[in-house]
């Protein structure tokens, strides 16, 4: 239960959705609780990791969409009009 509570608290803390009073209490705990500090650090990395993963995934999808648009005969007029911009 503690770990569950802390997961929720840490998320609120890192996403800045804590009330000033809760934040103060949380930061006081941070000073004295090395385990909590470790968890805050690790959880922050998880969000960053998810963001990187999400961006990678979306990037690959966009590359595929780009390739499709610029090779599809039905999109030829559009594709040519964009190409002409660079002529």
């Amino acid at each position, binding site marked *: 239960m503690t770990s569950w509570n802390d997961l929720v608290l840490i998320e609120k803390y890192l996403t800045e959705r804590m009330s000033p009073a809760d934040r103060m209490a949380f930061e006081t705990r941070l000073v004295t609780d090395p385990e909590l500090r470790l968890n805050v650090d690790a959880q922050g990395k998880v969000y960053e990791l998810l963001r990187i993963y999400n961006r990678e995934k979306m990037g690959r999808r966009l590359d595929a969409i780009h390739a499709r648009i610029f090779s599809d005969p039905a999109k030829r007029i559009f594709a040519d009009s964009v190409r002409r911009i*660079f002529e």
Partner: protein
Amino acid sequence: MERQTMVKAHAPAHVDDHSVEELYEQAFPAVARFVRKRGGSFDEARDIFHDALVIYFERNNTPADSAPEAYVVGIAKHLWFRKFSQRGRATSIEMEKDVAIDTAPSVNTGYLFQVIRLTGRKCLELLQAFYFGGRRADSIARSLGYSNAHSATVQKYKCLEKIRDAVKTKSVSYDDFLE
């Protein structure tokens, strides 16, 4: 103990390809003209446009704003200015400070996928649904096959904890993800 119900079908990505394509065709010409005017190439226009779309969809579920293409073009211009202005300061467009994809280094995907695989596909889909695309818990629960918003939320934190523990035991630092 919360029980996760079976994910019935493979969960769809939060935005379908058709909407992305539509937005692509609406916004890309303007970005291309902008980049061309500043001496950029077709490939540079494409890259900056893709970065702008990634940022856009990171925050928005569907292209449902009144003028999504204007927003995407705005992000692209901002990224272009950031890329080419001295020390990235002289931006003429005010954007939120977390629009920072231009600093995104290339990612060591092999390592990333190793950690991600520990999490499992279902967890990953759930976390992505929660954190990217701005969907509500009840809508996520419905589309990913959880009985209700509460159970999806409980599962979200379990998944989060699973990756967090992996990150802790492997002492994964942010740098490890970068090449």
